[in-house]
Structure formats: structure tokens, C-alpha cells
């Protein structure tokens, strides 16, 4: 029982984290029609910035805030110098160019921070276990991740659905020429959206940093997961990304936690313990393949055009 609740919360937490990453990706994809493989690099940079700034200032929160600002700025710089010129190009060009950016960022990190990973230690008040149900404790930091991610999701929803900027973003997604013709500075809008996506990726990275180590290439595996999510959810749909992220986070975490035991009942011990990790890593891809075969446009296709 204890394990089930704990793993369930872990799944929720991982899913919400994935949502932060996928939201930026799906916004950029849905609105600018840009396939950004370098999104995972922004996630990595968020984690590295946070580890560095936290060590400088000595405060986790201050470091996190500075890292958030830094990834926002980095995203904007990246958009203005490079990615802006890719809008309207073939998707394949995007893949190639942003693949190059991944190489660049990984190497730059190796040059600046060295090949060894960094650690981002948590302050004491975030490491205490919190009782959530009678007899069940859960780490405060993971609860904090859930709370922050839910808050961001809510703000994002309100921002996109209820504010003027959000209205322009939605309008830009459905017809970019038209809103340009109506006198909206579409370039600025795109830069803004890209910066927002970068900051979300950075937020995901810096929140994940204390749980895992901060290392080169950390963005690549999770980037693929984020792509899986936006494809399952339907490209351009934030609601789809949210539901798919929770779903994928749950399946991945629960699969890893419980599949080995399930397999052990069918297979011999040795075979099960080697097959289980591979099988649980495959689960999400299997899920995506099934979704795409049944609904080739994802579960919640955004109404474009």
C-alpha cells in the first residue's frame, strides 16, 4: 500500500515535470511550426545554471530564480540569432539545425563545466519527509515539484486562455499571416513564446537537478519523452500535452516499479531481472505507437488552419 501510494505520487511528479518540458515544445511546435530538438539542451542548461548560481549565492531558491531568468534570456538569444531564420522552412531543416545546436550545447557545457557531473544540494527544509496520509511520508521536495508544476500549468492555462497575449498566441497558431496583417508584431510574439518555452524547459531542468545528477546529455533522453508526449497529446495542444504527460509519467514510473515483480511470476528470476528494465523503458514507445496507429493525429489534435 505504502509503495503503491509512493510510486503513484512519483509518477504524478515525473509526469508534471514532463509537462513543463512538453508544454514549451508543443507551444513552439504548434505556433511557430518549429521542430526544436535543442529543447532538451535548454533543460540541461537550466540545471547547470541552477547548480552554478546556487553554489555562488549559497541559496537554492535564489539560484533557481536566477537560473530561470538565465534560461529565458538564453532562449531569447537563441531565437533571435538562429532559430528565427528557420521558420517556414522544411521540418527536416529544423531537425538538422537543432541537432547541430545539441552538439554545440553539449560541447560548450563540457568546455565550461567539465565532463564530470554537478550536484545541486537541497536546503534542509526541503529534505524533510512530510506525512501525507496516516503512516505515509513523502519527501517535501517532490511535493514541492508537484505544487510548482501544477501552479505553472494553471498559470499557463489562464495566460493562454484568458489574457490578451494568450489570445494573440492562439490567433498566431491558427493564422499567422492574418494576425500579422492586423498589425500585431508577430516576430516579437514568436520571440516571447520561444523564451517562455525555454524558461519552462529550464524550470523542469532545475527542478529535476537535485533528484538526478546534473550531467551532459541529460536533456536528450527526456527530450524524446517530451516528443512522445506531444505526439500522443496532439501537436500544438496544451491540454493534450498535460494529459499525455501525466499518463506517460505514470506508465513509466509504475512500469519500472512493478513490472519486475510481475515478470518474475511468469519468467525465471534471472530472465525477469534483465528483461524488466528493457521492457519498462519500451512501454511508453509502445504506447505511442499504439496511439498513432489508432489515432494518427494524436489524442487531442489541436484545431489548426
Amino acid at each position: 500500500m505504502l509503495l503503491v501510494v509512493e510510486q503513484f505520487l512519483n509518477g504524478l511528479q515525473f509526469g508534471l515535470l514532463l509537462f513543463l518540458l512538453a508544454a514549451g515544445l508543443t507551444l513552439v511546435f504548434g505556433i511557430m511550426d518549429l521542430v526544436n530538438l535543442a529543447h532538451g539542451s535548454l533543460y540541461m542548461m537550466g540545471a547547470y545554471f541552477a547548480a552554478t548560481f546556487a553554489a555562488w549565492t549559497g541559496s537554492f531558491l535564489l539560484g533557481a530564480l536566477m537560473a530561470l531568468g538565465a534560461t529565458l534570456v538564453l532562449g531569447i538569444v537563441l531565437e533571435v540569432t538562429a532559430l528565427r531564420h528557420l521558420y517556414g522552412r522544411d521540418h527536416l531543416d529544423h531537425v538538422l539545425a537543432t541537432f547541430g545546436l545539441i552538439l554545440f550545447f553539449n560541447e560548450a557545457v563540457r568546455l565550461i563545466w567539465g565532463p564530470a557531473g554537478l550536484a545541486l544540494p537541497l536546503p534542509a527544509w526541503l529534505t524533510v519527509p512530510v506525512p501525507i496520509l496516516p503512516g505515509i511520508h513523502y519527501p517535501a521536495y517532490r511535493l514541492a515539484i508537484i505544487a510548482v508544476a501544477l501552479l505553472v500549468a494553471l498559470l499557463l492555462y489562464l495566460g493562454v486562455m484568458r489574457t490578451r497575449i494568450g489570445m494573440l498566441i492562439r490567433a498566431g497558431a491558427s493564422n499567422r499571416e492574418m494576425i500579422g496583417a492586423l498589425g500585431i508584431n508577430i516576430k516579437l510574439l514568436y520571440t516571447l513564446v520561444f523564451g517562455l518555452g525555454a524558461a519552462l524547459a529550464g524550470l523542469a531542468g532545475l527542478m529535476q537537478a537535485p533528484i538526478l545528477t546534473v550531467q551532459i546529455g541529460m536533456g536528450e533522453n527526456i527530450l524524446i519523452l517530451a516528443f512522445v508526449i506531444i505526439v500522443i497529446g496532439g501537436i500544438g495542444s496544451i491540454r493534450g500535452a498535460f494529459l499525455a504527460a501525466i499518463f506517460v509519467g505514470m506508465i513509466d514510473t509504475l512500469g519500472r516499479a512493478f513490472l519486475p515483480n510481475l515478470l518474475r511470476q511468469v519468467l525465471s528470476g534471472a530472465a525477469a531481472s534483465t528483461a524488466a528494465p528493457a521492457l519498462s523503458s519500451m512501454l511508453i514507445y509502445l504506447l505511442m505507437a499504439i496511439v498513432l496507429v489508432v489515432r494518427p493525429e494524436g489524442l487531442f489534435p489541436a484545431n489548426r488552419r
Partner: protein
Amino acid sequence: MKSLSVSKAVTALMLAGLVLLPLYSSLSGNIFIMTLFTRIVILALAAASLNLIMGFGGMMSFGHAAYLGIGGYAVGMLAQEGVGSGFIQFPVALAASAIYALVIGALSLRTRGVYFIMITLAFAQMAYYVASGLARYGGDDGLTVYKRSDFSGLINLSDRTQFYYLCLACLFGVIFLIWRIVNSRFGLVVQGLRSNEQRMQAIGFPAKRYQLVCFVISGTMCGLAGALLANNTDFVSPAVMYWTRSGDLMVMVILGGMGTLFGPIMGAVVFLLLEEFLSQITEYWALIMGPLLLLIVLFGRGGIMGMLGRAGRG
């Protein structure tokens, strides 16, 4: 006509260089260059196979490295089980790749555009994790191929020169095959489907069936590259199938010129030589390689072949 001659001349020069390379190597005593170029030729073969579906067929597969792994594992696993004959290993490698391509092609071709890119990626990742889970065959650590494929005296794969020429012959054979396919009725239908699928369907061509056959042919060719690669490195591991490998193959195709016959070879040669060259100058070679790719996308449309064409005109 002049534009054609520039790219033709460069292509001919490159092909002649590839054929004469062992001569240079034995004269200069530079053995390393043979090892490097064997790898280049094999990956050029893989890139050429990808170009068939990507450049001519308009199917953007982001999971092509899976076939490198499947072909490689077919060789490695059979060798491990004591089946050393290349006459069994190679057909099995090709058949396994063809079956995999048939299954994932039938499923993936239901989608299009970015969704197709992503679903092929997902299947390749699955293949990657399956290979990681093969405890009997090394799992994550990979599988050492202790003995290269044995063609019972016909050709000795352990001889550096013979192996190089085998790879080169496979590459030229595949290029010839692609040339025949592209100019056949079948190839014209597939290219028509790239330009306008609806119209081709309206004329009465069963679009998906044509695309699937093309997809399977391409996968089988890449499986051959995989079998050769395992023989070249004497080793096969899940890392061969990792998604960045698929990315590398795509880069080679686009760099050389998508939808051109010799572009992928050019792309593979330039990409891998650049990688080698830059890594000799600096440990941080990717710091230069990354932005270079970006610049090529931004300013060099049509890849090297396209640029050569423009140079000829300008």
C-alpha cells in the same frame, strides 16, 4: 549543362578517390586511413538507403539506425551461436531488417509529416531497448564478434583491402540498384507520391503499398550496412541504434544533397572526415561542428550537391 558538369566532376573525383584509396594506403603506409574509410563507405551505404525513402520517397524516417543494429546483431548473434558462415549471416541480417521494416512500415505509414518522423523514432528506440535487454548477447555492454563472417575462401573479411573493396562493391551495387529503382515505373510512382499523394491516389495508385515496398527495400539495404559495420568494428552494441545515430545518418543525407544519387556518399565522406579532422584539432570538435550544421541549413540549401550546382551556374 555547365552546372551539371561541376557536380559530375566532383562526384567522379570522389568515386575515383574511393576506388584508389587502398593503393594510396599501401604506398604511404597509412593504415589508419583504410580503417577510417571502410567505416565511411559503410555509413555512406546506410545514408544512401535512407536517401531512397527520404529524398526520393519523401518519407522522413528518424529511426534508420535501427537497421544498422538489426543487421549487426544478426551477424553477432549467429557468430555467438557458432554459425560463422557469411552465406547464412548476411541473408539472415537482410531478412531480419526486411521483416522489421515491413512491420514498422505498415504501422508508421498510417501517419504522415512530423508524426511519421516521431513514430519511426519510437520504433527505433524500442529496438534499442530490446537490444539492451538481451542479457545473453551482452545487453547494454554490447556483443563482441570474435570471428568475422566466413565466406569459405571466396573473400577474406579479415584482410583489410579485401574487406574495403567488399564494402565499396556493396555501396556501388546499392547505388546502382537505387538508380534503377528511381528511374523505373515503380520509382516514378513513389516520387509522384512524394509530390502529391492525393493526386496519385486519384489516378488509381495504391499509395501506401508503393511506399511500404520502398520502405522495406530501403530498410533491407541498411541492414546490409549493419552486417558490414559489425564485421568492421568486430563489435555490436545498442548504441549503434541510439537516436543520435539516426540523426547522424539524416545529417549525412541532407549535407550531401537529398534526392540526389551520389549526395549521400558525399555527405558521409564530408561529415565523417570533418568529424575526424576537427577532433584532431581540438577535443571540443562538436563546438565547431554544431554551428557548422546550422550554417549549412541556413545558407546551403540542397546540400553540397546543390551548392556545386549553383557554383557551376554562378
